[in-house]
């Protein structure tokens, strides 16, 4: 197969494929980071994670329409506004959900699974009733469309670069929050020893709520970013769940670094296999490999102790 191409072409093939893998990696990280925070730090499974992402996407849709109607001259920057609003909206919804029922279920992770699944059904139906069953199209600003030619044959899609940049910013932000800020300290304290943290004066309920809201907010930004590369419809959230969960579990849920490492591994494996095999088989093989490795090492890549 490679004999038909010159070495320059082969180089560009690998370069483009490498970038495709990096874009996929960024997508996985964005999807998984929000969930990893919630699951890893709090042990809560949020099956409605995809729906929070789609909330971000719908918010982006609304904002793009708003700008198109009232502020057409500023259309170029609407995307940044949309991302911020998505973060706030998804975070607010997350806080509401946490306050209404998640906080009663912290000791019962399997039950949160079921309850959040019910939440996802309700959210899907709300989207369907409000926005219609059809998918909505989000118009991108011009500067986000097209690709950047790095050389004659290598072209990188701009929105891919944007997603990669966004991922770096968010991952960096989360790292900073978690490990360098006072609030992050408090979160880690609550995770490691809740009664002691409460005894020291940390408002554990408030910390939980903010953490959950943060995780959902990041999901909202991810959804907003995905309007560039995917579809926005009531059931679009379902497309992302299984992959996201696997990335988080594979990484060893205790560690955010693990999430990033696992996203990298899975995305590179998948995009490499996609190149040499057909799409379906690549997906199946990737899933099988992940499950297989998980069976041998169930605690994931970076785990501190065995998970129950």
């Amino acid at each position, binding site marked *: 197969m490679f004999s038909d*191409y010159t070495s320059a*072409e082969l180089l560009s*093939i690998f370069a*483009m*494929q490498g*970038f*495709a893998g990096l*874009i*996929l990696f960024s*997508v996985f990280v964005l999807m998984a980071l929000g969930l990893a925070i919630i699951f890893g730090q709090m042990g809560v499974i949020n099956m409605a994670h995809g729906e929070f992402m789609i909330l971000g996407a719908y918010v982006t849709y609304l904002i793009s329409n708003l700008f198109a109607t009232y502020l057409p001259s500023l259309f170029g920057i609407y995307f940044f506004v949309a991302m911020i609003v998505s973060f706030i909206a998804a975070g607010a919804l997350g806080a509401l959900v946490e306050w209404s029922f998640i906080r009663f279920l912290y000791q019962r992770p399997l039950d949160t699974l079921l309850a959040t699944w019910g939440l996802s059904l309700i959210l899907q*139906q709300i989207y*369907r009733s409000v926005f219609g*069953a*059809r*998918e*909505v*199209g*989000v*118009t991108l600003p011009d500067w986000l*469309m*097209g*690709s950047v*030619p790095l050389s004659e044959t290598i*072209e990188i*899609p*701009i*929105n*891919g670069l944007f997603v990669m940049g966004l991922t770096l910013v968010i991952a960096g932000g989360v790292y900073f929050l978690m490990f360098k800020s006072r609030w992050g300290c408090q979160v880690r304290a609550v995770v490691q020893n809740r009664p002691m943290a409460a005894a020291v004066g940390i408002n554990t309920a408030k910390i939980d709520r903010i953490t959950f809201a943060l995780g959902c907010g990041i999901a909202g930004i991810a959804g907003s970013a995905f309007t*560039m*590369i*995917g*579809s*926005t*419809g009531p*059931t*679009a959230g*379902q*497309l*992302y769940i299984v992959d996201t969960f696997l990335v988080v579990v594979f990484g060893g849920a205790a560690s955010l670094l693990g999430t990033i490492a696992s996203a990298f591994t899975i995305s590179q494996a*998948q*995009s490499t296999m*996609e*190149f040499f095999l*057909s*799409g*379906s088989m*690549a*997906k199946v093989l990737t899933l099988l490999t992940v499950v297989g490795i998980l069976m041998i090492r169930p605690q994931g890549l970076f785990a501190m102790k065995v998970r129950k």
Partner: protein
Amino acid sequence: MNLVSKFGTNTSGFSIITRRGVIKTIAAVCAGWILQAGAAEVNTTGLAVTDKEVTVGILHSVTGTMAISETGSVQAEKLAIKQINAMGGVLGRQIKFIQEDGASDWPTFAEKSKKLLVNDKVAAVFGCWTSASRKAVLPVFEQYNGMLYYPTFYEGLEQSPNVIYTGQEATQQIIAGIDWVVKEKGAKTFYLLGSDYIWPRTSNKIARKHIEKLGLKVVGEEYYPLGHTQFNSVINKIKLTKPDVIYAIVVGGSNVAFYKQLKAAGISLPKEKPLLLTISVTEDEILGIGGENIEGAYAAMKYFQSLDNPNNKAFVEAFKAEYGKDIVIGDVTQAAYLGPWLWKAAVEKAGSFDIDKVRAASPGIELTTAPEGYVKIHPNHHLWSKTRVGLAQKDGQYKLVYETEDLMEPDPFPKGYQ
């Protein structure tokens, strides 16, 4: 009671007992008996038919992932029924419909179809969209002898006495489209791409056979799971192999992702290097994809909303009046619209609602009022129709660039392509 009010009362209310009243009563009973007998002729199998009404079923997904696509079909069928009723109905009877939700779940389709046929005894069912739903309901229709009008373009390989297929089958859509792109655009190499299930795979098999028959080359063939959203790898492969034509049969949510990513990767479809030809994107799908992302792609269908003929103009106007001026109408929606009209024509030709008689009367039925122009029912229960190629515009509509001169004969079991 009716008799009394019809044939008059006197103030004392003993109307029936007078002599005049008795004669009138007997006359009424005889008239009723004759009408009843007439009705019996029209309906010998116990379908839900009265003197005033006939009941049909509409079976589509109102909820679930398929709701996006099936909404148009429901709207079209309801509009057709409304128009038929305004014209006097079928055999003098107004059409009443029972609508059931398949919920994008094939077993539910089977269950609801059984309910419509066995419990509600409907005279016809307009429904289904995916092949899976049709396959699930087919045994029910064959066991209970119902008639289904199925609107979606599909892979063929089926010919049931209990289904009328108002959408095109694969050879009609594919062969004409490929011939056109070879002749008009000088295409020599093709890259086949599709979602991973029966329709794209079967269609690509037919496409490949035809391409190779013409002596041309298929440089790649790929399938991605339903719902897949990351196409950068295959887009890279396409850039690599530099085909003349991308033959895309991507379906559902993947559609949006694919076209957005294609554009983002720098493949500008209006440049036609490569050119993209699809059979799976109608005006409905473009709503989700965004006209600016798919501008420049070609689609092979039998119907486009922009068709310029008096039937279509009237149809689009009526549709917009009913459902809003921003509504779009795709190929399947129009095919669904044909269903009630074809049924009406068959019933009137047969003079009866009996399924067996309707079936016998159907082959040869022509519809000159179809928005797509003209269709005729073939003995294999598919439709003779023209195939057209359209160029996707930024505003979400298709511009017609080619139309077959003759009607394409439907051939669900094509020899040499199997």
